[in-house]
């Protein structure tokens, strides 16, 4: 095989691995298997959703976000969502996470930077809300699979005017 083909082949395999991983992640979210979803994160993992009028690279230490969880708070978010006293999500909503345009941007010192587009539907009590935008992941290879060091969700909507809240995990 020529060098180009070999590189292509390697890139294709990597993308398929990443796609498999992210599809499984979406499935865990849609099945409300949130404690298992949490296990996908590294010990220093972060989950963030900036507001929509700041730079996509904004820091939650200086700008207002909707969500900026370190690993501890993310664990507490999951614990909260699994309780019957999380009123906004009990009875639970049904969700469907669609992910596409998955793209490995770079691989640097064992960290993969991955971008993808998302479209998430949430239905509860006769109301369906939609969230859409792009994901930015930092993934760490872990055997055949990956761990998430960072998941940043960039909403394309005008704030949350349509949805009102982010009570599910995007």
């Amino acid at each position, binding site marked *: 095989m020529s060098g180009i083909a070999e590189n292509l082949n390697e890139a294709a395999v990597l993308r398929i691995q990443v796609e498999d991983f992210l599809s499984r992640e979406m499935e865990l979210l849609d099945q409300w298997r949130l404690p298992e979803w949490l296990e996908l994160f590294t010990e220093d993992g972060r989950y963030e*959703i*900036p*507001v*929509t*009028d*700041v730079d996509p690279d*904004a820091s*939650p*230490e*200086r*700008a*207002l*976000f*909707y*969500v*900026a969880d370190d690993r*501890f*708070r993310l664990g*507490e*978010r999951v*614990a*909260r969502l699994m*309780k019957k*006293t*999380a*009123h*906004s*999500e009990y009875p639970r909503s049904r969700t469907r996470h669609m992910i596409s345009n998955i793209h490995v941007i770079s691989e640097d010192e064992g960290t993969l930077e991955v971008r993808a587009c998302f479209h998430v539907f949430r239905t509860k009590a006769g*109301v369906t809300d939609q969230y859409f935008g792009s994901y930015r992941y930092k993934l760490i290879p872990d055997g055949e699979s990956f761990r998430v060091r960072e998941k940043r969700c960039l909403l394309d909507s*005008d*704030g*949350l*005017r*349509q*949805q*009102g*809240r*982010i*009570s599910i995990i995007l």
Partner: protein
Amino acid sequence: MGKTAFLQRGPLVDVSSTRFRVSRHAFVDREVLEAEYAEIFDRCWLYVGHTSEIPKAGDFITRTVSRRSVLFVRDKRGEVRAFLNTCPHRGAQVCRARSGNAKSFQCFYHGWVFGPDGRLRSQSDEESYASGFNDQGAGNLVPVPRLASYRDFWFVSFNPDVENLEDYLAGAKDYIDVICDQSSEGMEIVEGCQEYSIRANWKLLTENSIDGYHASTTHATYFDYMKNSVGSLASVSLEGKAFDLGNGHSVLEYSAPWGRPVAQWIPAWGEEGREEIDSIYARLKERLGEERAERIARKNRNLFIFPNLVINDIMAVTVRTFFPHEPDYMQVNGWALAPRDESASARKYRLFNFLEFLGPGGFATPDDVEALEQCQRGYASVHEAPWNDISKGMTKEQPAYDDELQMRAFWRHWHESVRTLVEE
């Protein structure tokens, strides 16, 4: 607006010495919403923005205030101005950006150009207009009828005859002072706005923003989280009082166990954090004396300024304003307010604290949103179940922070404002 509908509705607020009730028609009837725009939103002072959001000449923001697009801008001489964002020629919105810096604003429809002072600078094909066309200023952007600020909070009014802002703010002024006195350098809005909506009547958010009664049930999971977080609670109990500040404004002032970046330390912030909090407190004490320093640092405030401004000085400071679009739908804007001279580490704690509780992705606000939307759904039974009860603490001499005096203050003022339109 048929008269019979009003008569069927009866009184919107029903008060005896032991019971205070509000009709659920106040939350569902379109005539009530129209009366609120006519008698409240189009007549009161309304928050538009903060000095820190437009620091330099030419800085601008466009914002919807009482259904109008307002251009909030700093002109070349450094003066803050506010204009109706509509071209005097045919009406198009002149500025379509949400914020930025501009030397001038051009309406794209026919090309009229305005300065940040609102003055018409040029028109395309100007020679087709009579000389002296703009001598009376009819070609300039229309300024909002009234614009004034207090401690860097800017307010507009669409009522030229509104009383002056300081009189309007009444007792709320002192509490704005307490909140702003936490910094000798003034306060600023942190970059970023939480923009959301709630499928419920706007007055439900007014009540919720100053409701000390709902915390233990609605926010059970927030308190679970606080208990799980090592060192996130100070040994301070939740207790305090509610005050009627006049003109429909009110406040809860209370102590609470959460950390306050100005200035109540919690173990989670470590020894380094303790040193910083101690030095913030020492500076407050030196500048303002022990009593006021203690109040600024250790007391929380949920401040409500009629009709739709909330400044909650709690585990962080949030500024929140909201407008109804329908009887059962409102749009909400929320910001974080912080001392201008805050260190990077204190700012970090502050924003971490903010997101823990506040905002549509926090551990508390989504459950508030759910509660408000459930209330609104309940009002479908308005004919059979017509009353809300707001009586808690009514017979006490000094109602507590978790009584409902502050809501009664709102409702009395609200009722005075709209009753002639909707009850007679």
